[in-house]
Each structure stands twice: as C-alpha cells, then as structure tokens.
C-alpha cells in the first residue's frame, strides 16, 4: 500500500476517570492529530461502549479511514471488541493497533507530566506501527467435538455430566482410584445440611453409566499438544492389578485376601481407619473396582502368596498381577481442569500440637468421623474410644496468615459451623469456636451462623496461641487451650477433650505440574489464574483450556458447581462453533533465507518447528504455532518472521516511543 494512501484514525478513551483522571485526553487527541497520516483524532468517555464504537464506524465510512488506533486499556480486554468494529465497518480487523495508556501509563503514574509524555509516546508508537500493518486473514480449522476433564471431584463430575448430557463425548481423568473428590468424604454439607452422599453418589454413578463419558481413574495426563479445538493428549494409566472390564464389583477378593486383619492406613479415611492391600477406598466408590496396593500386597512385593483373591475371583479372572502402566491417546477440542485443592498440613504450627496430641484433629479428619460410612460410623469418638464432652475448633489455621497463606480460605468458617452443629447433634458436646472474624456471606449462611449460636455453640473471638496436655483434677488427660478473648479483653484458658483445626485450602498436590502441562498461569498462591476475574472467570491464558472449582481458588460446593457449568458452557461454545479461527500472529520461515541451522527447532516451546531434511530449512506448522516469537528472536539469519509482529512494525513502534 502506498504511504500517501494511509488514513489513520486515533481514538483516545477516558475510561471514565481511569485515564482521564490522570491524563489530559483532549491534549492527547490534539497531539495525535499532528502525527503522520492521521486524519481524525478524537477523545471520548468510553470507547468500548456502543456510542464509542459507532464513532469509529462512522468515521471509517465518512473519512475513508483505513487504519485505526485506539488509545485505551490493555489489548487483553478490548482488542477483540475493536477488531470487530473494524470488520463491521468493512475494514480488515488486523489494521488496528492499541496504545495501552491505562495499565501502562495512567494506573502506574503518579506524576501527571511524565505520564502525559509517556502516553504520547505510546500513541506515536501505535500510529507508527499501524501504518505498517498489513491486512491478514486468520486461518481456521475444525474442532474435535470431545472434551477432556481433568479431576473427578464435584467440579469435574458436574462439568462432565453437563457436557455429556449436551451430547458431547467426555474423557474424565481422575488421579485417585475413585471419583468424588473431597465432597465424597463429607457427611453433610453447609448451609442446608444436605447429605453429601445423597447428592453426590447418584452423580458419581451417572458418570459411570453415561454412554458418552469415558472414565479413566487412577490416571494422569502425561502430555498435551496442539491448541484450542484440536488437542492431542496422552493419559498415563496406573495399574490397579484388577481389570476394570472384567471386574463385576462383587468385592469377594477383598474378603478372601490372606490379610485377615485390616492393617494398612486407609488414605481415603486419612489413616483413621485401616484397609487391606486389596481395597475399595470407600463403599460407594466409582468405579466399584478394587485396587491392589503394590507396596503391601504380598504377591506383588515378594512374589509369594497363596493368592486367595485370585481363587475368589474364580472364572471372572479380573485379577491381573502382570498389569503394567500404559498410555492412552485422545484427541479433544477443549479441556476443563478441575483438580481441586488439598488441605493445609498444620504440623509446622507446633503450638497446636497436631501430631503430638492424639486429641488434635484436622477438620477433614472430623468430616470422616462424622460420615455415616466412615471409620466410626458417624460417631464422634476420640482415638482412645472416649466421647468428648468439650470440643474446640480453631479457625484460620494456615489461612489469613502471612507465614503460610495470606488469603482467606472462604469455606472454613462455614464448615466449622457445620462441624459444631453436627458435633452437638451427635454427642451433645459443648463446642467452642475460636475465630478471628466469622465470614458467612453466602446465601443462607448468616442464618446458619445464627442457628448455631442459638443451638448454644460458644464463640470466642481470638486465635489460640498455646495448647497443652494436662491432667485436670483426676479427669484424665485434657487439652488446655490458651486464647485471648479479644471481646472480653482477657486471656482465657479453656479445657477441651478434642481440638479441631479448621485448616486452609491450598492448591492440590501436583498443581504446578498441571499448570506447566496445560500452559496456564497461576496466582502467587498457586491457584490457577482465570483470564479475567470478572469477564472471563473460567477461561485461562491458554485458549480452549478452562478451569472450574477449587483449583481456581478456595470455594464451596455451590460456587464450584456453578463454575463447573460455566466451564462446560464455554467448552460447548467452542465445540459447537465447529471451527476455530486462529490469531494470525503466527511465525513463518522464509525458505530462501533459512540456513537450516535448527536453532529454532529445539527452542520452540510448542514443538511447532520441524526441519525439512530435503530442503534443509525449518518448517513451522501454523496449526501448532502459538505466536510466542521465540524463534523469530532466536534466528541468527533473520529468516523467521511473525505476522502482526514484523521487524518493520516493531521498529516503527520503537521509533514512535523514542521520538517523544
């Protein structure tokens, strides 16, 4: 395009007071109108609003503009909005440049004068670059109508069922031998006190029975390739030494195991109950297929055992000691990550005595005790078999604490109230809640708080600083809790028989590997980061990868389920569109210049580059390239180029910045 044919329009947004409160937007527009090829420059309160958009469309029509610069917020937020505006007005959408004068200038500048200068520089840079931008056509490809869901807690279960009910195929990968996640451990759920099993187990079996869900338990995703619409994933399947296709779930093998007594701490019960080497984590597990633990099974450990389990299985022949790990491959169009959380280990807080005193429990352990199918059949009994008469619950253990997790774990106050209620109901014990602030902001939460107060649960405002184990006047051993009752303004010593620690929720084990595997980001705490906290709460920085549930941050079941359905809807939107338009910012290699040195091949983080042995040049697969630009920067011969980020465009941008 000839330079004199360029007609650029510049639009400076006030963003309410976000920008205009710091920068003089009228001055910026005046400044822009003096830049080369600029025909129109305006400022307006909200460029992204309908009148703002219409302003651009009108000018394009009226003045025959053929390049647009919007000086506003980050392109992450509204680049797509304004590209659509160009398209609607008949322009190629890639003839747009955004000058980010909000995040890069207004929000981070206290000094107006230097801010104004920097905003001018940003605008000049965008005008310089847009003049060199070329019309681009995005490539498009069909979407594989199948979704991978990682994690089979309530989030993963809900998302999988919604998608499968909508007619999509789902691959559900769960690391444990059963799905259900944390919710499967609970007896009742706040605030409604619904029985967890009654609302969860039907969903679990629906997953198993659904013709469109392929359930892969005891498995983990090994690798992911490709991009939104066409991912290739490999799933590593761990051997349970029992063939899922042959097992009928009669559990006679467990009965028959040579281990007559239960000896091994059951992981699902957090060690509060014991199991055999061959076991089902809990009676309602899905799939109802036992697992053999190779660490403790005599046959697997020593090769020597009567193998009474095999006898019991008889002609079903489901037990297979030769089973090895294997890999399965799937193609999917979208991915939902729902790997949940784990609870904080309070052992480092030595003053709470967890691990030192048998009377100190984590809340999750108590959930197991309360569970009707748990280790004590739902009775609140201490490790020595006694029923506690006084129970203390310490809030915020590991939460709201800069030494551990500065954030509030959101559900602990409520589950503490739930535990208090259930404990009073089951054994009539006095219950003390040691809290900092009661956070009950959900629907019917405050009412639940009030209800527990009326039930006679005690509330002491203060964090426990010391727990000792004393014998009090012939009462046997009791814990003595030291707390400052900050409402009374004095230190109190309260004897209890059982102390429950309301432990924080933290990112699940292995969250960091999951993050790297799927190329998503996380917050400083390690929870997965949404693309935008308000406008894209289940999207991630990786297109086609969505997040749901507690892996994104601590949350309760209602919020988890809502988010799971939101993620399912986003996945559906992607799949039902049928095609994916790729951002045309991909890199390509000029075959005439490439020396075949292969520097780029190993550097590409997405394995998109392969050497063409015959021509001795590097070839970039446009369907795998994500436009990160690594190869372009690395190429020693300058053979690699990237659309939307050509050297010309970048130099023009720099010139614009430096000229100011």
């Amino acid at each position, binding site marked *: 395009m000839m330079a004199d044919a360029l007609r650029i329009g510049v639009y400076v947004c006030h963003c309410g007071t976000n920008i205009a409160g710091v920068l003089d937007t009228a001055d910026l527009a005046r400044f822009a109108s003096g830049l080369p090829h600029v025909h129109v420059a305006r400022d307006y309160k909200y460029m992204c609003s309908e009148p703002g958009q219409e302003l651009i469309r009108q000018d394009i029509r009226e003045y025959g503009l053929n390049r647009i610069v919007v000086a506003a917020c980050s392109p992450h937020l509204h680049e797509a909005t304004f590209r659509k505006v160009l398209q609607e007005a008949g322009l190629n959408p890639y003839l747009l440049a955004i000058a980010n004068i909000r995040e890069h200038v207004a929000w981070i500048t206290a000094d107006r004068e230097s801010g104004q200068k920097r905003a001018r520089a940003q605008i000049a840079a965008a005008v310089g670059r847009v003049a060199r931008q070329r019309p681009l056509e995005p490539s498009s490809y069909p979407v594989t109508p199948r979704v991978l869901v990682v994690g089979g807690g309530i989030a993963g279960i809900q998302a999988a069922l919604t998608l499968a009910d909508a007619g999509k195929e789902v691959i559900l990968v769960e690391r444990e031998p059963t799905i259900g996640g944390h919710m499967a451990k609970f007896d009742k759920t706040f605030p409604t006190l619904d029985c967890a099993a009654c609302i969860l187990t039907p969903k679990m079996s629906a997953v198993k029975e659904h013709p469109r869900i392929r359930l892969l338990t005891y498995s983990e995703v090994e690798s992911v390739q490709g991009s939104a619409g066409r991912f290739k994933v490999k799933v590593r399947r761990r051997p349970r030494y029992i063939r899922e296709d042959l097992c009928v779930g009669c559990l006679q093998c467990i009965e028959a195991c040579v281990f007559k007594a239960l000896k091994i701490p059951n992981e699902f019960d957090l060690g509060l109950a014991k199991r055999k080497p061959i076991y089902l984590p809990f009676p309602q597990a899905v799939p109802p297929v036992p697992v053999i633990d190779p660490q403790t099974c005599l046959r697997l450990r020593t090769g020597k055992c009567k193998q009474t389990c095999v006898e019991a299985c008889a002609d079903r022949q489901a037990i297979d000691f030769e089973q090895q790990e294997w890999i399965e491959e799937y193609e999917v169009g979208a991915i939902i990550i729902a790997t949940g959380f784990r609870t904080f280990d309070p052992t480092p807080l030595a003053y709470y005595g967890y691990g030192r005193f048998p009377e100190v429990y984590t809340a999750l352990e108590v959930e197991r005790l309360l569970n009707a199918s748990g280790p004590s059949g739902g009775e609140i009994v201490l490790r020595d078999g006694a029923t506690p008469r006084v129970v203390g619950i310490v809030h915020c253990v590991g939460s709201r604490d800069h030494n551990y997790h500065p954030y509030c774990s959101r559900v602990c106050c409520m589950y503490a109230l739930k535990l208090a209620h259930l404990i009073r109901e089951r054994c009539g014990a006095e219950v003390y809640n040691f809290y900092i602030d009661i956070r009950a902001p959900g629907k019917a939460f405050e009412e639940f708080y009030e209800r527990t107060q009326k039930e006679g649960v005690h509330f002491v*405002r*203060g964090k426990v600083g010391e727990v000792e184990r004393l014998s009090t006047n012939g009462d046997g051993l009791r814990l003595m809790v030291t707390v400052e009752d900050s409402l009374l303004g004095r230190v109190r010593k309260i004897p209890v028989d059982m102390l429950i620690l309301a432990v924080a929720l933290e990112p699940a084990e292995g969250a960091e590997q999951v993050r790297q595997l799927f190329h998503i980001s996380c917050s400083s705490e390690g929870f997965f980061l949404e693309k935008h906290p308000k406008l894209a709460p289940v999207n991630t920085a990786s297109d086609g990868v969505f997040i749901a549930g507690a892996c994104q941050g601590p949350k309760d079941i209602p919020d988890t389920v809502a988010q799971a359905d939101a993620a399912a809807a986003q996945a559906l939107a992607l799949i039902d569109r049928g095609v994916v338009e790729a951002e045309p910012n991909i890199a390509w290699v000029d075959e005439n210049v490439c020396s075949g040195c292969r520097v780029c091949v190993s550097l590409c983080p997405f394995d998109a580059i392969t050497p063409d042995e015959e021509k001795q040049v590097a070839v970039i697969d446009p369907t795998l390239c994500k436009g990160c630009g690594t190869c372009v920067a690395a190429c020693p011969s300058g053979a690699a180029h990237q659309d939307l980020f050509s050297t010309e465009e970048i130099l023009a941008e720099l010139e614009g910045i430096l000229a100011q």
Partner: protein
Amino acid sequence: MQCGLCTSSCPLGDAMEYPPRRIIAEAWNNSLERVIHSPSVWMCVGCYTCSLRCPREIDLTDTVWPAVRDYALQEGIQPPPELRTAFQNLYLYGNVFGYSPRKRLDWARNLEVTVRDLSKSPEPVEVLWLVGCYPSYHPRNQVVARDMARILTALGVRWGILGKEERALGDCDRLFGEEGLFEMLVENNRRLFERFKFEKIVLLDPHAYRALEKFYPRFGASFPAEHYTTFLASRLDQIRPWLKKPINARVTYHDNCCVGRRCLCFDPPRQLLQAIPGVELVEMKRNREHALCCGGGGGGMWLDAFITEHGGRRLSDVRIQHALETGADILAVSCPFELSRFEDAVKVARAEDRLKVRDIIELLADSMGLGEGGGR
C-alpha cells in the same frame, strides 16, 4: 487484624494489663498514653514468639515494644529501678554490672593458653571474639569463657579479644526503648571494630549476636558475625577427633530466643551435642521455634522481682519444669543469661541433685579433655 495470637502466644500475655494485641488497638485509637503508665510496658521479655507467629508479620518484639517504651521514657515515665541502675552502668562503664573495664580480663587470669589482647597489640586475626559482659565478669560464666579460649586454641584458630576496650553491644537496652543509649554504643563499637583486622566476629551472647546481625547494619555498622554454636558446628569435622571422653548423660537443650526463634537456627547446637560420645539428646515438650523463653531477654534479666510481682511467675522456673519432665541429667544452654537463670531455677525447684545446667562449650571442652568442669 486483632486476632490476639500475639497475646495468647506470649508467655506473660495473661498477666499483662496491656498485652501486645491491645497495644496495637490502643495505638490505632491514639490512646497509648493510657498504656505507658501500666507495668505491662516493662514486662515483655523479648522472646519473639509473638513476632514469629503474627499472621500479619507485625514485628512486635523488635519494633512495637521498643517504640512504646521509648515513648514512655520520653513522657518521663520511670522504668523499674533495677533497670535504671543497669542502664546507668552501661552508660558509664560499658557493662551492666558497673565493673571497671580494666577488670574485663579477669576471667583469663592464670589461663594456660595465650590470649591475644588486641587492645594492647593490634594484629590481624581470623576471629575477633567478643567475650561479652557475663562471661567477662560473672564467675560462673567466666568458666565458659576459659573453656571457649581453650577450644579455639585447640582448633588452631587465630583469635583475639578486645580486652579492656570491649563494651556491651546493647541489644537489651534497644529493646528497652533506650534507643539513644543504643545508638551511642553502636557508634562506639563501630569505631572500635574498624580499628582491627579480622575475618569475623564470634560471640557467646546470642542477644549481642542478634544486635550485630540485625540492628547494627541499620546504622551503617555491618560486620560478619556468628554465634559460637554455628561457628563451632561449621568446624565439627575438626572438633570430632578431639571428642574422646564420653559424657554419659541424658541431655536436653534449651533453644535461646535469639539464635533460635529470631534466626531460626536450631540444628547447629544439637549437632554439637550429638557429636559428644555418650550424650543422649532428649527434647523438651516445647522445643525449637516453640521453645519457652527463660525470661531473661529485653531487660527481663534485671526484672525478675518486678515480673514476678506483676506476672506471678518467673519463666525460668516454668522452663525448668519442662526440663525436669524429660528426665534429663543435664540442661544444655548456649546463652550466658541462661546459665545463671537456670542454675537459680534448679535451686528453687530443689533439683540440684537431678539436673545440672551447663553451657554447650563446657560439655565440648570436657569431652575434648580441656574443660574445667564448670557446673559439673
């Protein structure tokens, strides 16, 4: 956030009219003038438990309490008289006892190993050893000083001391709000240290070590320093061949607050003890970051009567019970204050025949065949 964890963690929190949380609340409310008249102001023993645990990382021990005390002193409030005397002595003589600086070398009289007194003949040394006030003047601690001199010499370390020129480093008075006195000591010590050539400073007193590590650099006085426990533990390979004489005893170790909670250094002292043949190390129910303070820090050393009056107990007496519960024969310490505090507490508990209090240095020296047997 007013969680009160500081108060409930404080070994004297229940006895304070204005415990740490309350002080923050009063400061918010601009009513600190109420606080400064209360005995609470002088009750913090600088154990650092609250600071270490505070979920908002508020540095109560080393910042809030000194500020409150500084404010009290500025308002003309008199600290308890015992303390006034101690600080006057510090100001006049550079030690809390009020002894003459010339007597600083008394501990080394008749010592068979050579003592390089740099104040007399300056020469470059590897280790500048700050002996400290207690080991210089206090008879029980003088034994420890002599044993240390023997160990350093046996290890072939080129060490020297400052003799009559050595002065206290001033940690306790800083905590006590005597910021001015502290600054004066820092300035004097900085000028003093700069006159000599050494690779590092080694100290017996954990409080002084901590002051040198954390507060001196704020006044531009940065010197490489180590507490003797880490210094010796880093040379354990060299020490081991010397450790021939078994000490057949159950030993429990009391973490001092400065090397322990403040510097989170818990292993070196234990490594030293475990290297001694015959020693069976047992832990008290509260150990490492959870250890209970001996009550001697932050001026507490001089305020036993005052704190007992207002707090109803002496922490060293409580702590001795913890040690006795373990059934240990020896309570090992690594702080000059503790030696005297705990020996006294053992007497109060009438447990002299069951429990001995000994510095790690003494135990090492005994096993190396060099010790005088202090406290045995």
